[in-house]
């Protein structure tokens, strides 16, 4: 650039001389006369002075042109609103080390070679004033408007929209594809709660809420077929039918077979999805399944406003990634080295909605970073509203050593404490079931008696501790995180549930230890600018399990999970990255239940 500018400068100089009536030849004459007198020398000196002045003027003009250009660039830098994002596509398959009839294959499903559009995320950044920043990031889920499905109820076809569901920590659950799964507790929704003697189905967990939009103190009519009567829905092929949402309760508020009193589930604060902690070790594949919702398939990954008056003190309000460890905050498929995220991330609350205070204190050789927050907690319902006054608290401290010899050298520690209550709100109303068992009628329409009450049936306190470190030295990067989680469960009427239901597939897991170490090395050469980084990752998890009631199925108690991954990250440029990954996993003492997952991915940021 500078050479080009200098050439321009020379050209301008010569042009200037020419325009002033002095050809390059005459310039030569002036510069190198054969013989000169004193007068001629004076004239020559005068000419040189004039030329020098012209050169200086042209130089100034040139700098002015450059400065104006730069001012335009500066105006671009002063831009206050930015849109950018990333997207990812994968080709993946899973091969099991066991036959198709095995429990794991049956429960997880086979996963053929599949292309998947894994991400489409957009950022909106707005810097309205000095020291104020606003950032939001949305993720378009696999089907932008949810996946449309149809089902038949009472000879009528009903359209429903399903969209991505979220695990207990609010992480979008992704398509299974052989990923390891785990249901911890809750969701007693197996096809069992049927009392055939009285021909009444009880659906405990997985409630379908009914609403009183008419505000008349009675549930809105479920009348899909338009016959003016509440519809009946055949429940799980049992031959027993009740409308969803109507359940008899006994005096304790638990499901019963007493037909005299039905209850209406009044907008449960937590639907079945939040009762079930299903853990998927991917963060990138969407599954349109499970939670019947019509959200339009857009997930707000984060949305916050920040006041940043000082490096040591910043206040962020809104939805933000939980500052816990390294990977939970790192983001974007082009930034992350591997296509699979470490399994331990499933134990970390992904986001928080609340207030975060963070900052950095600069010490001579180290930056001390801190983050402290108060928020609702990890439950997805908490993004909408909390169901109790207790708030979760957490924080992270990080020492980042400043040295030009290391690209990065940091150690950190994180902590989190939260309490969650799962509860349902009921509204007792006077209903009776018809003799044919297909309809529910309100017995006192003129003066319906309403008896709202709330049942808390799961109360859980959770503590998380984490440590992390990262060294980046001359292309060699070693990153690791460790986590300990302790949960104190209290499940109301646990004995009742166990005695009335056939099997509990959801054991409690009061303690978990998890760690991963990931070394990688950016090769010191590049091919036409393309850089290669092979990597390896070892993950180890140990969990202690309390199975509330385990029957039939060989689900293990305490167990160890080991996952080994290796692959190659190819960065064509900072905006296009290719990834090739192989993962081997051995899970929880299952005999011969090993997974082999092959993945290739392309990640693009824009």
């Amino acid at each position, binding site marked *: 650039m500078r050479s080009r500018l200098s050439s321009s400068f020379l050209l301008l100089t010569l042009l200037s001389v020419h325009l002033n009536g002095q050809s390059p030849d005459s310039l030569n004459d002036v510069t190198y006369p054969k013989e000169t007198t004193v007068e001629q020398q004076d004239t020559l000196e005068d000419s040189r002075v004039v030329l020098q002045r012209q050169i200086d003027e042209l130089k100034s003009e040139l700098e002015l042109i450059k400065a104006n250009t*730069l001012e335009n660039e500066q105006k671009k830098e002063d831009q206050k609103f930015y849109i950018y994002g990333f997207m990812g596509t994968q080709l993946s398959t899973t091969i099991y080390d066991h036959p198709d009839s095995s429990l794991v294959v049956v429960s997880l499903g086979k996963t053929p070679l599949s292309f998947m559009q894994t991400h489409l995320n957009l950022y909106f950044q707005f810097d309205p004033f000095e020291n104020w920043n606003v950032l939001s990031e949305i993720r378009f889920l696999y089907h932008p408007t949810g996946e449309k499905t149809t089902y038949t109820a009472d000879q009528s076809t009903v359209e429903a929209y399903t969209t991505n569901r979220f695990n207990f920590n609010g992480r979008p659950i992704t398509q299974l594809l052989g990923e390891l799964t785990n249901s911890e507790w809750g969701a007693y929704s197996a096809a069992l709660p049927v009392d055939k003697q009285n021909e009444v189905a009880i659906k405990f967990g997985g409630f379908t809420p009914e609403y009183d939009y008419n505000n008349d103190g009675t549930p809105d009519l479920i009348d899909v077929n338009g016959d003016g009567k509440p519809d009946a829905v055949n429940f799980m092929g049992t031959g027993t039918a009740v409308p969803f949402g109507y359940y008899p309760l006994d005096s304790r508020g638990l499901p019963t077979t007493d037909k005299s009193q039905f209850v209406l589930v009044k907008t449960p604060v937590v639907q079945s999805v939040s009762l079930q902690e299903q853990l998927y070790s991917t963060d990138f594949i969407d599954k349109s399944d499970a939670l019947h919702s019509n959200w339009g398939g857009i997930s707000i990954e984060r949305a916050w406003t920040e006041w940043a008056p*000082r490096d040591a003190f910043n206040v962020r309000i809104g939805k933000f990634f939980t500052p816990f460890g390294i990977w939970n905050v790192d983001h974007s498929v082009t930034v992350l080295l591997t296509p699979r995220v470490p399994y331990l991330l499933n134990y970390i609350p992904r986001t928080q909605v609340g207030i975060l205070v963070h900052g950095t204190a600069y010490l001579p050789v180290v930056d001390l970073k801190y983050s402290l927050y108060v928020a609702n907690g990890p439950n997805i319902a908490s993004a909408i509203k909390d169901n109790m006054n207790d708030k979760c608290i957490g924080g992270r401290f990080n020492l980042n050593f400043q*040295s030009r010899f290391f690209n990065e050298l940091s150690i950190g520690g994180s902590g989190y404490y939260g309490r969650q209550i799962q509860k349902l709100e009921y509204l007792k109303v006077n209903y009776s079931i018809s003799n044919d068992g297909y309809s529910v009628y309100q017995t006192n329409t003129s003066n319906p008696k309403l008896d709202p009450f709330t049942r808390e049936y799961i109360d859980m306190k959770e503590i998380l501790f984490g440590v992390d470190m990262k060294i980046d030295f001359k292309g060699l990067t070693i990153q690791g995180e460790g986590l300990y989680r302790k949960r104190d469960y209290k499940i109301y009427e646990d004995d009742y549930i166990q005695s009335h239901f056939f099997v509990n597939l959801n054991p409690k897991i009061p303690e978990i230890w998890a760690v991963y170490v990931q070394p990688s090395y950016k090769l010191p050469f590049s091919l036409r600018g393309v850089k290669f980084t092979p990597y390896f990752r070892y993950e180890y998890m140990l969990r202690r399990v309390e199975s509330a009631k385990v029957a039939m199925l060989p689900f293990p108690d305490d167990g160890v999970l080991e996952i080994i991954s290796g692959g190659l990250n190819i960065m064509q440029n900072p905006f296009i990255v290719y990834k090739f990954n192989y993962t081997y996993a051995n899970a929880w003492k299952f005999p011969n239940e090993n997974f082999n997952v092959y993945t290739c991915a392309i990640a693009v940021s824009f």
Partner: protein
Amino acid sequence: MVLVLSVTTNAQQVCIIVNKNNPVSSLSLNDLRRIYLSMRSNWNYGKKIITTIPPIGTQERNLFIVCVIGFKPEDFITYFDKEKMKGNIVTKPISLNSDLAIQRFIQKNPDAIGIINTSSYDSTSVKVLKINGFLPNEEKYPIRKR
């Protein structure tokens, strides 16, 4: 002309300059690194720091990135892209095309900081910072080709 070219293509040493009214007169190498990696965004007196840097490919820029940041020059841009995608609010240094342009920019912007070739320094418009306590003409000045 030859003189101009030789100055712009041989960066043995760069100096760090700020506005003459900037109360800061000295920075540590680590602070300079923090400032240019957008880790530290405010001067001690509270104003936001505006960073400027010579354009990609110039020896002054490369010398600075290697000596101060510790990155390979091409990784310097990647760093900002990565931080942005993580959701961190970072500000890339403004790339200005010549030492004169950088000095003029800093003259106009009291909170700006810049990197120029030491031979281009114009003491009438800007002032040079000490780095780790040393001025560019001192032997222990750290930002120089060795």
